[in-house]
């Protein structure tokens, strides 16, 4: 199927078409922070920027209801609160589609012996992602180093390429992507020259990113990796705040809690972070990761070593650069990955 093309000025007309069938979310800048907001006439779409919070919030919301229940001495009635709202997120970064796939490998595994997270699964089935390709990768971006692509289609339903005055819309062939085809006078197929122009844009973007080297998974003995000097250095300045984990599109650790009042209650979950001491603190006081050093090490080794060992060598980082850009003390995963993949180049 050929991609579609329409004028940039017709973007909101296209979004309106989608809005008649689905709930549409778009990136909007407010107080200088870009986040995804519901599409309406008032807000202006702000494409191209890396939204501050990732699309993770739509798949694993910061706060998510799991169960609602009524409980009394005689009975317990539980209702699962599976999400069912169909929605489109327009203008995500292509790397975020990959992040959804990586999280899905962990939370919705296909093997028979592992349990599936039905909430994430439902969100995945109900959420349609239309990406806006990255013509100009930012200073923190390194998707090509992690196995991604500034115009990659993994995890996406469609992708838009910005040709300057016009937008090229390419569906990815997922079941629902047929419904994303522009209708009426917006339905115009791209010409050969449009496709050539798009190809050139993609090539230019990749060229920038390819100067940034590939991240390799370290094969070094884990006990050696554990004693590297880099953990001590990094922990010295690490604040142990949750910025990196909360902005990260692939960090998926969560906490679970109960709330109960007057016979009715709910069980929900919310994001948690391996940076917090409470994350692993036993109720008897022992903490397997007692200091910043162990917690920092856990975060990076989980992404760059443990996850790949379980998932065919794929690292759990898509190179969106959020943690790099927003860490108050400049802890840079690229630098750490580099020192790890130097395979024994740095030892304590």
């Amino acid at each position, binding site marked *: 199927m050929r991609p579609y093309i329409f004028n940039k000025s017709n973007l909101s007309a296209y979004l309106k078409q989608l809005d008649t069938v689905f709930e549409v979310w778009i990136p909007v800048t407010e107080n200088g922070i870009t986040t995804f907001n519901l599409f309406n006439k008032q807000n202006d779409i702000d494409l191209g920027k890396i939204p501050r919070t990732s699309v993770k919030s739509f798949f694993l919301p910061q706060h998510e209801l*799991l*169960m609602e*229940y009524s*409980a*009394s*001495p*005689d*009975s*317990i009635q*539980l209702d*699962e609160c599976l999400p069912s709202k169909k929605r489109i997120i327009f203008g995500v970064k292509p790397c975020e589609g990959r992040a959804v796939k990586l999280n899905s490998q*962990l*939370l919705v595994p296909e093997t028979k012996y*592992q*349990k*599936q*997270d*039905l909430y994430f699964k439902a969100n995945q089935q109900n959420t349609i992602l239309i990406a806006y390709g990255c013509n100009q990768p930012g200073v923190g971006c390194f998707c090509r180093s992690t196995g991604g692509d500034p115009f990659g289609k993994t995890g996406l339903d469609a992708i838009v390429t910005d040709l300057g005055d016009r937008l090229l819309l390419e569906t990815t062939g997922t079941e629902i992507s047929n419904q994303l085809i522009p209708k009426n006078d917006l339905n115009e197929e791209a010409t050969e020259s449009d496709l050539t122009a798009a190809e050139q844009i993609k090539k230019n973007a990749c060229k920038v990113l390819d100067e940034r080297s590939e991240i390799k998974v370290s094969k070094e003995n*884990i*006990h050696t*990796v*554990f004693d590297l000097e880099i953990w001590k250095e990094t922990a010295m300045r690490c604040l142990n705040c949750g910025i990196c984990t909360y902005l990260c599109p692939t960090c*998926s*650790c*969560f*906490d*679970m*809690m*109960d*709330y*109960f*009042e007057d016979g009715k*209650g709910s*069980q929900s*979950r919310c994001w*948690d972070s*391996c940076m917090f001491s409470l*994350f*692993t*603190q*036993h*109720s*008897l006081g*022992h903490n*397997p*990761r007692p200091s910043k050093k*162990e917690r920092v090490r*856990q975060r990076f*080794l*989980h992404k760059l*070593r*443990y996850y790949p*060992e*379980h998932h065919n060598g794929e690292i759990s980082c898509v190179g969106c650069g959020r943690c790099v850009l927003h860490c108050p003390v400049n802890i840079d995963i690229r630098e750490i990955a580099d020192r790890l993949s130097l395979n024994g180049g740095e030892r304590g």
Partner: protein
Amino acid sequence: MANPYQKYPVRINSVYNETEDKRLKTFGLSFVNSEDSDYFFSQSFQPGQYALVWIPGYGEIPLGIASAPTEHNKLVFTVNKTGKVTSKLHTLTEGMLIGLRGPLGNGYPWEKLKGKNIFLIGGGCAFSTLRSSIKYLLSPENRQDYNDIWIVHGARTPGMLLYKDNFKEWRKRDDVKVHITVDSTSLATGEYHVGNVPFVLKQELPTVDENSVAIVCGPPMMIKYSIDPLKEKGFLPENVLFSLENKMKCGIGHCGRCSIGKTCICTEGPVFSMAEVNEMPDDY
């Protein structure tokens, strides 16, 4: 596919104060719905597994299952009062309803252990999965599959010993050797040793070959100091089994907190051999 966060309602049938400091209570539970019970036991429940016990409004905690699959339709848990949920659980009485998810994790490798001598060594609340194991091993349908069985149980004082009625029963049998020890006591009756568990291991255990397996459950200090005596007696690293504990929330390998290195305790464990533990990075 079933929602892994779904819980079965279970009713508290009995509450028993195990120890003199009243911090360990044993709860007997039964399923409210027979189909839940059938499902639970059809999941090839094995001694060594755990379940998540849920109190509405308070949350869930992982607890080693203290009853054996051979005690059909009966569930027993021994609970140490430590945190928010366990403190609440300690206030609950007979007849009350709570929730349960499980069985979770892997039990001890019973198929592989067939024909071996089995040494069950434990102290404190962690003895619960050993109670399950002993009940399982000593049941008529399983006893002939296993060779010698030894039990070593330790506590700080006589009043802190667990499962006193069960031990009375087990001591009467001639197909199992029972050693009970207390760290200190004011009246030595000869009923038990005086000294800690590692000391008793050194003194009482025979020298063994590769056909003997030790299952060690207890407080970290007990485990730490039991390793050397066990090695001296000839236990191979792959024949010493531990049940590891870490903070858990989801129980299905998703929430991320219980892992040690690449190993997820809640799904790949909690049972690991000493050989496997030695391979793990020092993050526990």
